[in-house]
């Protein structure tokens, strides 16, 4: 097959792996946004903390990798419940803007805590995935990328089944539509919110663990969450399928732009592409691919 085409496929495949990460981070944001109308600005810190937690479980405590991932997920879930209970619930009924400010406060608090607990050094995660890449008909994929794609697929399936078929999943979707009517159905909206924060933080933990495998771990890891914003906006803010499609699309576009344009312009294109897309989406189609045309909440 011709090499031009193989190069394209290669870029798309690594773009998908990158897109899975964006999608995962975006879903974490969108879950909370959709159910409660709150943009949680501490999401990045949860990702960063999870990476640290997983790192120390594996290195200092010699916990096997999979168990460490599971424990990290549980810890993140509990953090979600505690956050909802101690910080968000007292803010119930306050303007959304104040609540969002509180999440910004939380992000600063968590980052300082992480600094105190885990230090300011760069750490390298002892990746459990073999370093040799897999060759498939001319394209090269790292094993880490393969695992990221497979796990994301499994997570997406679990999400789908949960929201489509489980009683609590249905209650969550109903609550996202109309909180006041959900109350009348006998749904404990408090419980739903606690669960949403838990699920969202667990999603953040998953992305944290993946990121730990592809990047150095330090306090700056929390910034990657901002990288998911273009995906969220492209997906339409309050749609979970939208966040997934948006994440994948941004990952692929970013990689393609990097692969083709960086040679010409000389670097840096890859990193700005998502934000160029963000800008274009906001101008042309501000409600994104899956969003409602009018946005009721502000």
């Amino acid at each position, binding site marked *: 097959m011709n090499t031009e085409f193989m190069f394209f496929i290669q870029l798309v495949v690594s773009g998908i792996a990158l897109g899975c990460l964006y999608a995962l981070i975006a879903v974490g944001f969108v879950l909370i946004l959709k159910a409660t109308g709150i943009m949680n600005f501490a999401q990045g810190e949860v990702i960063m903390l999870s990476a640290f937690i997983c790192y120390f479980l594996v290195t200092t405590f010699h916990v096997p990798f999979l168990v460490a991932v599971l424990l990290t997920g549980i810890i993140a879930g509990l953090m979600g419940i505690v956050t909802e209970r101690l910080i968000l619930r007292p803010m119930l*009924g306050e303007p959304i803007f104040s609540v969002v400010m509180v999440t910004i406060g939380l992000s600063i608090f968590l980052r300082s805590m992480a600094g105190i607990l885990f230090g300011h050094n760069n750490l390298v995660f002892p990746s459990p995935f073999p370093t040799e890449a897999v060759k498939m008909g001319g394209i090269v994929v790292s094993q880490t990328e393969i695992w990221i794609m497979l796990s994301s697929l499994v997570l997406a399936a679990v999400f789908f089944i949960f929201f489509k078929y489980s*009683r609590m999943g*249905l*209650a969550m*979707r*109903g609550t*996202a*539509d*109309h*909180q*006041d*009517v*959900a*109350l*009348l*159905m*006998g*749904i*404990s*909206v408090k419980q739903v919110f606690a669960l949403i924060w838990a699920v969202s933080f667990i999603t953040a933990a998953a992305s944290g663990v993946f990121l730990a495998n592809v990047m150095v771990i330090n306090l700056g890891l929390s910034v990657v969450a901002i990288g998911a914003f273009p995906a969220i906006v492209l997906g339409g803010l309050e749609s979970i399928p939208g966040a997934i499609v948006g994440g994948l699309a941004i990952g692929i576009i970013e990689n393609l732009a990097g692969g083709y344009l960086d040679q010409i312009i000389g670097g840096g294109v890859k990193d700005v592409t998502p934000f160029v897309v963000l800008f274009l989406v906001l101008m042309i189609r501000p409600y994104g691919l899956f969003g409602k045309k009018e946005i*009721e*909440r*502000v």
Partner: protein
Amino acid sequence: MLKVNNIEVVYNDVILVLKGISLEVPDGAVVALLGANGAGKTTTLKAISGILDSQNGELEDGQIEFMGNPIHRLDPDRIVKKGITMVPEGRRVFENLNVMENIKIGAHTRTDRRQVKRDVEKTFDYFPVLEGRKDRLAIFLSGGEQQMLVICRALISKPKLMMLDEPSLGLAPLLVKEIFAMLRVVNDKQKTGILLVEQNARVALNFAKYGYIMENGKIVLDGPTDLLVKNKDVKEFYLGVTDKMEKKSYAQVKHYKRRKRWLS
């Protein structure tokens, strides 16, 4: 079955909306609550359902008893579990759920999952048109179908008492008839008590055995409906044909505004 004793409700800590309401729904009875716009009918139902908190309202005084137990301090989910379900005004379906899911979500408090499946089929017997649309998103139903849907959604929780807030609002007369015929069957067969709030006094007084009339947060008149329909004031103010159409459209406009506010 339900006893509301002298309740007072305040919104936003200042606006006294219910100024001592008392009413009673005997076991399996059908009771109507009538009154002009803004009288406080919806607020009364919300107080019973326990959802005032979430709307900046508060029960300042009085008690609400259900089957002999006080319920006015319970969370709304506990109240639903005790057997009171409310059908809110304005056909509040879950737009992004399909018809089937809208009904299933009404069974949230039930633990007998298998029986729920069978009961969902049974509710379709009441309104066969819904069965043909069971995979459709509720947002794409007609107004009448949405009203049927919210009634089914309430029924699936197997309530002992069902409270309906203006179910006839904006529906064609034929459909109003059909819905009330269905409610009659539910009341007869399952002995479900019904507390009905209506603007359409003619329909309500015809349907209920006993009626309360509210004005400005107070009950001003109550009695068996066959006596109420003969009352001179009731005839003039509630059964007068001339101004009824105006009232209806006004109610819709107002409702729309209120919904907006709660969403934000």
